[in-house]
């Protein structure tokens, strides 16, 4: 059964089209990555799924129900972590966690304590004085403390330090082990790669790619910068794309499955320095869709 299903979902604000036909199918028990650049329509989609916005057209089903009509009963079974977290300035973090949990029912005190320790969050501070990362932690604790069967997370790690991102990933693994479904929106490809079983890529209000990560490997290339002692033309190597050369320094991207061959070819060339970085989503889009993407982005502004 699909936990989230949308078909040809559209949303327009006046003449501006935020969603232009979004098709999603999230299966029970999977961690689904919903990725796309800023302004692609991720949050709009989520807000329709939560019954905050009314769609202009198409269909949306959530846990077998209608997100607008059945909002209250459906929300009993899910938790949501908004991307841009602002909390009631006059309440303490602990109060927010307790309050939100009680809207569902009871809170498990030992689980609460465990999560507060894990995220190293001081629950006594007023939300006014929390930093962005700490506010994010409050909402994450409040999400993981619940026993909802579906977690909808909108860029949940923005503002978290790498150590806390680690904790977040552990929590997601744990949730997955319990058989829960996670819908994770992000613009950080690396995060999605580590966590998600399947991904959907949204761009300008449309899903442009979706499937298991392995199927989308062609999208995940590593960007390599290497300084070599010997002159060489790397463009002929299998799996190397978009090579450019500045004196002895090469910059190119490599398909994930071609990495081994490329490294073997580079090794005898006298490597002076080498950095390899995962591509950012934007880079990937520009590479994958060429200038058409840039032009459209510029045009839509």
């Amino acid at each position, binding site marked *: 059964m699909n936990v989230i299903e949308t078909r040809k979902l559209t949303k327009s604000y006046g003449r501006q089209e935020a969603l232009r036909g979004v098709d999603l199918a999230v299966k029970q028990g999977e961690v689904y990555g919903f990725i796309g650049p800023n302004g692609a329509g991720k949050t709009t989609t989520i807000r329709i799924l939560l019954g905050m916005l009314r769609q202009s057209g198409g269909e949306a089903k959530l846990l077998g129900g209608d997100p607008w009509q059945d909002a209250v009963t459906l*929300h009993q079974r899910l938790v949501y972590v908004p991307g841009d977290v602002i909390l009631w300035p006059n309440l303490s973090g602990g109060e927010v966690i307790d309050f939100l949990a009680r*809207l569902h029912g009871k809170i498990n005190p030992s689980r609460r304590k465990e999560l507060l320790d894990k995220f190293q969050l001081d629950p006594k501070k007023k939300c*006014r004085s929390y930093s962005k990362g700490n506010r994010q932690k409050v909402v994450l604790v409040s999400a993981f403390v619940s026993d909802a069967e579906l977690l909808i997370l909108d860029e949940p790690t923005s503002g978290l330090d790498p150590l806390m991102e680690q904790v977040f990933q552990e929590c997601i693994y744990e949730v997955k082990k319990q058989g829960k479904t996670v819908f994770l929106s992000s613009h950080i490809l690396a995060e999605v790669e580590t966590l998600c079983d399947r991904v959907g890529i949204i761009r300008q209000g449309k899903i442009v790619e979706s499937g298991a990560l392995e199927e989308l490997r062609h999208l995940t290339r590593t960007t390599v910068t290497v300084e070599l002692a010997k002159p060489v033309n790397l463009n002929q190597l299998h799996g190397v794309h978009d090579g450019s050369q500045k004196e002895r320094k090469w910059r190119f991207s490599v398909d994930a499955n071609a990495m081994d061959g490329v490294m073997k070819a580079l090794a005898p060339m006298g490597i002076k320095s080498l950095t390899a970085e995962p591509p950012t989503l934007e880079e990937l889009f520009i590479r994958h869709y060429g200038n058409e993407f840039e032009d459209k982005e510029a045009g839509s502004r």
Partner: protein
Amino acid sequence: MNKCHFAGTGKLLQLYLRRDRIVLPIWVLLPLMLLAGQMSFVRAMPDWRVFIEELSASPLTSALLGPIVPLSIEGAIMWRGLLQASIAVMLGAALTVIRHTRTEEAAGRNELILGRPIGRYANLTAAFILSCGGSLLAGLLTTVFLIGNAFAGSGSLLAGLTLAASGGIFAGIGGLGAQIFAHSGNARGGVFGAYGLTMLAMVLNNLGGSSTGWVWLAPEAWFRITVPFGENHAWPLLVFIVLTALPVMVSYMLLVRRDLDAGLVRPKEGAAHASPRFNSPPALAWRQHKGSILVWVIGMAFLGGSMGALTPNIAETVSPMLAEMNAWGAAMAKLGNQEGFVAVFIYILGLMGGLSVFGITTVQSLRREEKERYTEMVLSRPVSRWKWMGSYLAVAFAGSVLILLALGLASGLGWSVAAGEFRHFPRVLGMSLSKIPPVWTIIGIAALLYGWLPRIASALNWFILGVFIFIEMLWEVGIVGWSAMQWTPFAYAHSSIPIHELSMGPLIVLTGIAAALIGLGFIGFRRRSIG
């Protein structure tokens, strides 16, 4: 003070002018319109001379507004028009300073500015320049308007400058509030509290014969010190400037002594666990509003109690002319001066000027919760929209009842204790509680607007209240009849109706209308998008 502390003031001023291009003209032009309104009221009356002599002599109107000085058409226009104009400028100036200082700081935008080559005093200075400049402009426009209506030049200039001075000192008080409170809402509350105290000082001055020292504490009545078109004293303007400099200087001193984002009161740590009863949307709504309700209760109890205690000082002599003059005069003559005074101040505090503001601002907090995305946090949990909105409206209803109860009890006690007899007490309490249905109707109108037109609800709300008050003013001077008043919710618990003659039927209907408005508002809210 180092000069570079002020670097960038001009650029910030430009920004503020751009941001205030709608708000600033409103409060700068409002005094002009109020004066023009008062002028047309007075001139519309064929026997205005009799009118102002009567009102000036009446112990009731003297207690509320003071005698008319000088006893001429100019004096009559200062008497009520300049009083209202000053109140508009005072609140406009103070709220403008808070809007550009504390509100910006609490929202974190001030940090964006301070990270640039901008001096530490630039923000506050630009805000003061804007507010004081706006007040001065309002004053000069007033001067031009008065001269244009063939009033004496010196008196017109003095009236305008006195008006500007009242705005100036409240700009200072706004700056002070912005330094003391870490929350812009509290700072605004501080300004309204200060305004309430000046009102009390004004009434004390009126009761003391209108030339006591109290008047210095009531900037809205400073024209009683300068007396434009009468004795034309210019020297008090210098004293006003010194008085204005005080809060301004203290604001600068506090600004450098406190931390960014902090007020003078250090924030306490919160509880690690929520109290067991903090478990539902109504609990959240109550938690968000209990502070402001408490402040309203204390403020209204204080003002009502003090005014009630002053009531026995009002002479009961009623001139038969007053009753002849217009419907308002007749109603007041029937009530007697003391009861009329209590009825009028309870009407102003409990409905027209006080509780209607409470109702509107409390419902408007729904929009703020929505814009800050708190609503989304709650509605993404198993909470229906009806329950969320209903919780806040319930708090608005219950809060208004609590405040009116406090106002009625304190006013009744004040009057009874000062008079040494308790026969007035139940009537005063009744006066206050009779305001519940009209206040609920105002809450209903606000809820309807929030449900259907969230973006413009705030502006429309204040506009509608303004229209109601305008109709009231037209009725008081006899330009429109009672049938016009009946279009406002004010008419059904009006100060001119003796409490024992008030009919329950219309009040019950009004409560029904409030419920219907809420129902319609809810339908709109359920159909629209959040955010």
